[in-house]
């Protein structure tokens, strides 16, 4: 956490700066991600999508948000 109450997180390999006390739900809403079409990993642990409002992000957290694409 820096002086401005901001934390740095990495989402799908990209660095994002968000406010302290930012929940995973806040992130999903900010990214406008359709929650029923994705899976979320926080620091390599799969997250229960029902609990994202209770998960608050910490500095240097790594988040992966994945979905289905065309493939063989």
């Amino acid at each position, binding site marked *: 956490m820096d002086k401005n109450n901001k934390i740095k997180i990495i*989402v*799908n*390999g*990209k660095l994002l700066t968000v406010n302290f006390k930012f929940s995973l739900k806040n992130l999903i809403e900010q*990214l*406008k*991600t*359709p929650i*029923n*079409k*994705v*899976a*979320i*990993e926080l620091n*390599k642990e*799969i997250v229960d*999508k029902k609990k994202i409002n209770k998960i608050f992000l910490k500095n240097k957290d790594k988040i*992966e*948000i*994945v*979905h*289905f*694409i*065309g*493939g*063989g």
Partner: protein
Amino acid sequence: MKLDILKIANKKFKSRLIVGTGKYKNMQECAKAIKISGAEIVTVAVRRVNISDRSKPLLMDYINPKKIMYLPNTAGCFTSNDALRTLRLAREIGGWKIVKLEVLGDKKNLFPDMIETLKSTEVLTKEGFKVMVYCNDDPLMCKRLENSGASAIMPLAAPIGSGLGIQNKTNIKILRHQTKVPLIIDAGIGQASDAVEAMEMGCDAVLINTAIAKAKKPFQMAEAMKYAVISGRKSFLSGRIMPNFHGSPSTTKKGLI
């Protein structure tokens, strides 16, 4: 006539053609080709959501997973850990339990790493997954996969995307003889006759992606593959005549003038 049903992990399917959703020009083309093919199962891959460009179309907007079964695949995974991670995430997206496992071992020919594949099958089966396994056509490894609880054995006909057709017919025949779960030819089909051949050998289904997606006319090829699979299956079930090196007239001599 009795309905010829394909049963995979207790789910029933009428179509014996499974198609991939990769390599199409766009989602519309992909969705239309799938519809024409009559496939009830499509393979899909798990990848990062594009967080900077949200205008990108989503697969689920074009292919309804309630109407067509998504078969999450581990395409691009080279280790057991990556494959496990991918499929656990896939399950989390929406409760998918029937999955396709593919652990590659060689970047050039895309042959599967069978040691990693076997390890992953064991773990996934214990976690309650129904695993359809892309594998080599080696009967011993295929037996091990089956003994580890694989829900379908899916040997390659030839390298992925090569279109070479069935290269090792002897092994496929041996596999047909020994395999109790569905045996599905996955990878290497190039044209309709390859699909017919696989089905005439008694395979339970075929999985095709590149041969349709990269054909000059994908929709027409999707239709050709649909009928190839139906034709090959019916031919297999019909009890073919024994091949004979002598001719046998089709018309009786009786009444000949």
